[in-house]
């Protein structure tokens, strides 16, 4: 159990851009820290530097107040779970789990006891003599976990350990890992590109983009108070609707208009984003989370906080309906890294903005229908269109 400190840690590949750019981060003893970001954001590189698998170009990395920059991986007292598990194919489960102990020349009896304990904890006892190829994906994943916990390391490192599992198993393993970490109390650094995993698992989540740390905060704070446009767009599923809008301040009443819509903001929004008052008549980026829409009548908002849109697509999910619509405004950002990784940014329209609204599942919504959506304006977010900084 140990604290980890990144001080201006930088990684620069030969002739390349900085993969990690002066990362400053304190991870507390026993904390579950998640690194999240789109692919290529440097989260894995940061983890690999912590593991000792990558040289640190600049800065200082400490585990337990001890600088480990030049310590080889084996001497850092860390354990790592890889995305593809990286089990030793020629060793049985027992040998896989016990390999680190064997290398450390631990007495056989103690090593065996530790392996047995770890296997027991992970429900692997009956598979101890099998080879990895005779195991299912979930079992292999647990062997990889066992290999990590058997050493009682100072820090656990996990590099997208669940991404090769099917959806159902992933949910189960997610809670297993949370419980395991809580039980062992070991500091954990967990890398994922899946923001749902990040939100559900981490005590705190560090969002990275292009090697730069964007925000590190507890999950709820990331959701409620995103530090910039990127974090706002990245956290939440479906992601936040972002569109360009013009601010009007008229006699203390703040409104925002985009396309043919105009919303009057509840006082709560201005309290959270006082910067809005200085932006009268200028363009800002308005962020509306899909869940902050409701059918008119479902939400207690005034008629000046309602917008009418034509339904392009309605996805009935049971408990809720996702309404897709299009607004006649240029998109707030066409930066590919802000968009879902699965979406081709070239294919997105340049003069229209896609809007997604989550409304109660009791409503039947058909394509082509016009619906009136109430907006919980006190929950909106506002950002500077140039810098992406929140207008707080």
């Amino acid at each position, binding site marked *: 159990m140990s604290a980890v400190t990144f001080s201006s840690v930088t990684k620069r590949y030969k002739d390349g851009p900085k993969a990690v750019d002066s990362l400053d981060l304190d991870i507390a003893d026993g904390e579950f820290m998640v690194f999240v970001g789109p692919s290529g954001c440097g989260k894995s590189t940061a983890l690999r530097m912590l593991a000792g*698998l990558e040289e640190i170009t600049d800065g200082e990395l400490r585990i337990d107040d001890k600088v480990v920059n030049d310590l080889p991986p084996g001497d850092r007292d860390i354990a790592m779970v890889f995305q*593809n*598990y990286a089990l030793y*194919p020629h060793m049985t489960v027992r040998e896989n789990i016990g390999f*680190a102990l064997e*290398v450390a020349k631990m007495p056989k009896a103690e090593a065996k006891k530790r392996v047995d304990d770890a296997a027991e904890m992970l429900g692997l006892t009956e598979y101890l003599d099998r080879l990895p190829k005779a195991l299912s994906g979930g079992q292999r994943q647990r062997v990889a976990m066992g290999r990590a916990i058997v050493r009682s390391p100072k820090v656990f490192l996990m590099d997208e350990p669940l991404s090769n599992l099917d959806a159902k198993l992933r949910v189960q393993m997610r809670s297993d890992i949370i419980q395991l970490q809580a039980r062992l109390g070991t500091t954990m650094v967990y890398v994922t590109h899946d923001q749902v995993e990040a939100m559900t698992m981490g005590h705190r989540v560090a969002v990275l983009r292009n090697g730069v740390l964007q925000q590190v905060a507890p999950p709820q704070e990331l959701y409620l108070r995103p530090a910039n446009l990127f974090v706002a767009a990245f956290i939440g599923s479906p992601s936040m609707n972002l569109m360009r809008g013009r601010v009007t301040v008229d006699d203390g009443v703040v409104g925002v208009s985009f396309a043919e819509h105009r919303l009057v903001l509840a006082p709560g929004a201005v309290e959270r984003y006082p910067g809005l008052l200085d932006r009268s008549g200028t363009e800002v980026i308005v962020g509306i989370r899909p869940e902050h829409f409701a059918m008119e009548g479902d939400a207690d908002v005034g008629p000046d906080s309602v917008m009418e849109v034509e339904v392009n697509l309605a996805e009935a999910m049971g408990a809720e309906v996702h309404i897709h619509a299009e607004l006649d405004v240029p998109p707030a950002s066409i930066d590919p890294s802000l968009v879902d990784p699965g979406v081709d940014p070239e294919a997105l329209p340049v003069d229209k903005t896609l809007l997604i609204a989550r409304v109660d599942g009791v409503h039947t919504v058909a394509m082509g229908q016009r619906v009136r959506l109430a907006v919980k304006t006190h929950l909106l977010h506002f950002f500077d269109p140039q810098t992406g900084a929140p207008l707080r």
Partner: protein
Amino acid sequence: MSVKRKGPRATATRVATYALLVTVAIIVLFPFVVAVSTSLKRNTDIFTYPPSLVPRTETTVTDPERGLDNATVYVLPDEEGRFALVEADVPIAEFRRLDDPGVIIARPPTDGVETDRTTVVDGDEETVYLLEVDGEEVEVYRARLTVGGRFEPLDGDGASVVTLVNLATPDRVFGPRFENFSEVVTEKNLGRSLTNTMLVTMAVVVGQIVTSILGGYAFARIDFKGRDQLFLMYLGSVMIPFVVLIIPLFQLMLQLGWTDNLVALIVPFMFTAYGTFLMRQFFLGIPKEIEEAALIDGASRATILWKVMVPLARPAIATLATFGFLYAWNSFFWPLVIINSGNPDNGLLTLTLSTLGGRSSTDTNLVFAGAVLAMTPPILVFLFAQRYFVENSASSGLK
């Protein structure tokens, strides 16, 4: 197993396929069968006509009453039963019938009754004799006087037969001659050659495996300046034909004082660019994460290499060992050049076999016994290594 196509056409295809495969298998196996069978034959048995795949031995009989001691048992044409040669150098006349000169009738000269008539054969005047054949008196002439043998029947009390010895064929039964092997090993010095070859081959194979593993791992995983250029140069040496290297290599051996020494057969061949390439490619195919996991588990480079990489590389090592073994075991030309004093203690299997089977060779059975001895180890090695060729490789530990 997938579902197979059914129906008469599919069956016909399958039968045809198997027939073809069996035919090819027979064609491929036949030389081996002949070699093994010849290696078990007596020398006299090898050139008999019709040839036989089964090694046979001549039966003998011992009968003091008739004065027979370990005498060969013969079968005679046109006579039933077994015979023993009791008297050699019996005068024999070869009579030929006037009306059918193609048939030779071998009899004691006294059997023919001389007449005063003559006949002309091939321009020579020949006296006509009368000879009793199957109770009938026929006119014959005496083509030749020679000596034959008197054969006594061994079964029953029939009359003895006098005939040309070369018409009698020894009575043969199945009987392999395993002494061929011990003879070739002891008398033809093949034992020493076998030991030498094994020694050289083992040393070469072990050396190749060790150097290839170390080199291949370094080229695959350790970053150092000029690594890839060095690797290309090393690999390029594969393209230099060995004949080009013989003279410089010979001079080098001369200066080192290694001529006529087994060391000259081992040291230059312990390094192989091909093997290094093979191991490098295999190591490259092993996921990096496995190595990184071992690094994090605290293993040193050496531990990773011997405990993780080498066990995973077993298929490649088996391939390398097999090729190295075959190459070293069969190498002939370089040993012929460098082991040049004629000292039989430095002989190799290939060299000894070549002298054994040379132009003046008479011991065909021993040559084949030596050949069979020489080809057995490579076959065994191949059979043993074969299962590693098909064994699944490193990827099985992942997802």
